[in-house]
């Protein structure tokens, strides 16, 4: 069953067609990857899915399971980013966008704000409902930080974390929105091999333990080939190939697009 579909999505900036006729179909529970050379339009595709940009043409369809267990296909094209997050799509950013001055704990707590069931007055006056809500959020987040190995850093400022942990915190923050689909934009960028391995384990754990569907942009080909179920390849905005890791690895078009363009493939 599909969780996310894009239908003929086009995203144009002035004369630049960043994404051209994108058709993606991500099944529930799978781990899909989006690869392609620099400037291929991968991040732009994420931005269209998450509502940061309204596509020039095309549709984005999302089929989340709601609170009573019913699945409905919803047209999320050009909805507001926060509404899309409310529906169950969370993301990380290629160029880390943490709330730098806030602590690790606060960063994660912000992601639970969308679910508050008390208004600002009860929050300020600390009415019982608000206290209950805040304590619950805090407990959930502590649990999450614990699983992500960040619990000891919970009172540190986000900006003071080492780079690799900032990436982990971004993932933790996205998870705190309680998503059904997680979009990761180059989660391993700038990581050394050991960190990359740890990340690989983490992503697999998210898939199995949390039952998450994951859609990931990544340049580290070993990682992509190792853990993805499906791969989409973009070049100059166009989808030049899609399939399983095996199919992709042997696709002449993919090899051509990558040859001499991106050094990551060779290593």
């Amino acid at each position: 069953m599909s969780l996310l579909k894009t239908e003929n999505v086009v995203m144009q900036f002035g004369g630049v067609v960043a994404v051209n006729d994108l058709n993606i179909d991500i099944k529930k529970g799978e781990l899909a990857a989006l690869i392609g050379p620099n400037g291929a339009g991968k991040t732009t595709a994420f931005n269209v899915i998450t509502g940061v940009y309204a596509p020039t043409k095309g549709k984005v369809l999302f089929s989340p399971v709601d609170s009573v267990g019913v699945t409905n296909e919803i047209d999320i094209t050009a909805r507001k980013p926060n509404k899309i997050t409310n529906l169950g799509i969370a993301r990380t950013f290629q160029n880390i966008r943490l709330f730098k001055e806030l602590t690790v704990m606060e960063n994660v707590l912000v992601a639970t704000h969308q679910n508050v069931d008390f208004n600002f007055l009860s929050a300020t006056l600390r009415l019982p409902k608000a206290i209950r809500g805040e304590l619950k959020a805090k407990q959930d987040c502590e649990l999450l930080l614990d699983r992500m190995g960040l619990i000891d850093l919970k009172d540190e400022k986000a900006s003071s974390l080492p780079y690799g942990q900032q990436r982990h915190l971004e993932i933790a923050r996205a998870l705190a929105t309680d998503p059904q689909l997680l979009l990761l934009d180059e989660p391993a960028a700038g990581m050394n091999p050991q960190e990359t391995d740890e990340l690989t384990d983490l992503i697999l754990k998210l898939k199995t333990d949390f039952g998450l569907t994951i859609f990931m942009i990544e340049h580290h080909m070993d990682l992509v080939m190792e853990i993805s179920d499906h791969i989409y390849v973009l070049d100059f905005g166009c989808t030049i190939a899609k399939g399983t890791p095996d199919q992709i690895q042997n696709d002449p078009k993919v090899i051509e697009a990558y040859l001499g363009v991106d050094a990551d493939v060779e290593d």
Partner: protein
Amino acid sequence: MENIQHRFGAYIKIHWKTIVFLGVVLITIGLLDQFVDSYIRRLLNLCAIYTIISLGMNLVNGFTGQFSLGQAGFMAVGAYTVAIFTVPIEARATIFYLAPMTPLLANIQLPFIVALLLGGLVSAGFAFLIGGPCLRLRGDYLAIATLGFSEIIRIVFTNTQTITNGALGIKSIPTITSLWWTYGIAIIIIVLMILLINSSYGRAFKSIREDEIAAEAMGVGLFKTKMTSFMIGAFFTGIGGGLFAALLGTVDPKQFYFTLTYNFLLIIVLGGLGSISGTVIASFVVTLGQEWLRFLDEPMAFGLDLPIFRPGLRMVVFSALLMVVVLFYRKGLMGTNELTWDFIGKKIKVIKSKFNRKKSASQGGDNK
């Protein structure tokens, strides 16, 4: 020592030192209220009022990162609401001698506290109206729109003769003299601010300040959240304006010229955008400092006839100070930190270790 757990403090710990500190503050206010003369009393009242208004501004500008310059306008709304609804009915005929007050309002008089709250609410209502078109846009039009609003409000108040008495203003507003009104309300607002900022809403405000795009991606509705902050800020400012009217006993449109807003801007920049304790400290520093700098405007300062001391110099110094702070001490006194006991403890440690290092350095003869 132990932290005292409090019902309110399910997740804010109240340190015993804080309670002692609060006690000392209350006793000090009580003593001052008994003994100071009317000049000092007025000055101290002004400090408390400026604290309230600056907190309202810092909530929007410092904590939520939205650049609003409407303080003078929101103050005017609060001040006029208090003026209109508290002036004794008997006195109204003599005040509104050019054109009588509109019959809709002429016979309504409200208790001070009700009028004060109403002023805050009306001010928040105006914030709602301006926020609608401005807060939706990414960008800095809010600064211009709020500045424009505060000018329009002045223009409107100058022209609505039968409500505001136009350019003549409203006199004979029953005044408050006790420090308890202003300080009582200031303390309540400080506490409310602390509770608000340390709640889910406060974190949402700060997330918008830090990174709008990330905040939105985490499910924070930008418009609604900014609007909440903007309206609460305007509410506080309206209350401050109401107290201002009751302190001076008279309001007229000229008091609310938009340069008044720059006072509060200096306060929050000096105190630290996003610091409650910084705002409180800076409110006192700036208000008292401005009073103290009055000698700059006196031609005969220091008993000499120095031509540089003449009216206007004080404001030059004052605006230069704003430039110096923003160019060289961008974080102000506190940055986004708060003056908590932890913070003080850390600072003392840093100073001590610096001092020790200096000492050992100078003993080593390396006096650089």
